[in-house]
């Protein structure tokens, strides 16, 4: 019997040792596995290399992990955001290393790791600073740069729903890096809103087959969903709006 459900996030991340490379899903906040990241913070592993599209937003999730000082290096495409003050401070003071990768090369390098590709020629970044020192080659008259896979010991991702085999479906643009990261890590840990019985996911609509998933943590519904349906009433960070929003304008 296959049952990948772990009792909680702490148990799911308990064997992550110092020096590990961890892929963390999410594009900004969408799809970011915040409860798993919080468990990794509580767990205390140090000297981590984190791969994510960004380098944290605000003071929660990935940003909170960076704030612990336990991340040695970030591999990402877009660290600088209006709310990336945690990373900004670490970077400016030389306390964190950055490998900047164009977003599509980042996704494809992660995909290559999962798909057993040794390296690939990408047209993205050719002739730019981010291709400096990399091999290039002209193929059919077009120049490409050689890019290598990004594999990892662990992936922490978020999805909407799982069955106990680890089949996953995502929700809207929160899907982002989840499917490629799940395949690229030796151990993939997913947090989901809910687990459905085996057979409860349409086999045609499964996005990540369970073969790529090792551990499932159920974190319960998010504030903008009820029974899996969107009900709204939150801001972009998922914080519930004031139940009786103040009227705008002169009245206040």
């Amino acid at each position, binding site marked *: 019997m296959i049952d990948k459900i772990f009792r909680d996030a702490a148990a799911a991340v308990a064997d992550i040792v110092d020096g590990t490379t961890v892929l963390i899903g999410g*594009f*900004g*906040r*969408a*799809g970011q596995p915040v409860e798993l990241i919080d468990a990794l913070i509580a767990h205390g592993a140090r000297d981590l290399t984190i791969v994510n*599209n960004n380098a944290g937003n605000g003071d929660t999730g990935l940003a909170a992990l960076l704030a612990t000082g336990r991340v040695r290096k970030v591999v990402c*495409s*877009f*660290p*600088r*955001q209006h709310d*990336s003050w945690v*990373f*900004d401070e670490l*970077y*400016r003071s030389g306390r964190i290393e*950055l490998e*900047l*990768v*164009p*977003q*599509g*090369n*980042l*996704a*494809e390098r992660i*995909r290559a790791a999962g798909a057993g590709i040794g390296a690939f020629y*990408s*047209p*993205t*970044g*050719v*002739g*730019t*600073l*981010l291709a400096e020192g990399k091999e290039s080659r002209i193929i059919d008259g077009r*120049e490409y740069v050689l890019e290598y896979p990004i594999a990892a010991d662990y992936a922490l991702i978020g999805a909407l729903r799982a069955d106990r085999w680890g089949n996953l479906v*995502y*929700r*809207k*643009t*929160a*899907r*982002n*890096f*989840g*499917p*490629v990261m799940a395949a690229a890590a030796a151990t993939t840990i997913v947090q989901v809103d809910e687990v459905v019985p085996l057979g409860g996911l349409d086999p045609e609509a499964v*996005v990540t087959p369970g073969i790529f998933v090792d551990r499932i943590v159920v974190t319960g519904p*998010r504030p*903008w969903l009820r029974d899996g349906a*969107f009900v*709204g*009433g*939150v*801001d*972009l*960070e*998922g914080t519930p*709006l004031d139940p009786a929003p103040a009227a705008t304008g002169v009245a206040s």
Partner: protein
Amino acid sequence: MSTRIRREELAARIAADIPDGSYVNLGIGAPTLVANHLPADLEIVLHTENGLLGMGPAPHATEVDPDLINAGKQAVSELPGAAYFHHADSFGMMRGGHLDVCVLGAFQVSERGDLANWSTGAPGAIPAVGGAMDLAIGAKSVYVMTDLLTRSGTPKLVRACTYPLTGVRCVTRVYTDHAVFDIAPTGFVVREAFGDNTVDSLSALTGLTLSSAERG
């Protein structure tokens, strides 16, 4: 003196050049304004590189969905006919040349079509590239939307970029507040000059040798 058109007018001008049925990616910043001017009777499918085709406008504040955002991490909506996909598929879509048009901002565009729009190379700045380099090489037509001059009056159209490049020989056309330029093997070609701009006045502003579409 020369006439400049406003940014919203420029967005409308770009929108008018996008044919019905096109698949289009609008870059972060000013290019997103183009969406407001796409004719309602056309079907132009918007792509956002974080994994959605068929992106719709920003929702009402009470309908914001944290799982449904664009590449600028703003709340958006989905239209009938939408499809979601993961990042590798999304960037494969771009890199594979499936988008008809992308519209990007720029710090500089060179006369051979090089684009610089991700870094000013300023010391101490935190570098961030996102999908800029993928977009630059990732559409059949790469349109740039920009002011012709910086606030300090320096031309953004240049012989060769001095800022770090985003992509090499990738720009198809540049829409500026003064004129629209195509990139041809000979360099910039003035496709349309707004107001009292002329090829000569634009040459004077930019210091570039320009040709005219009529003469070309």
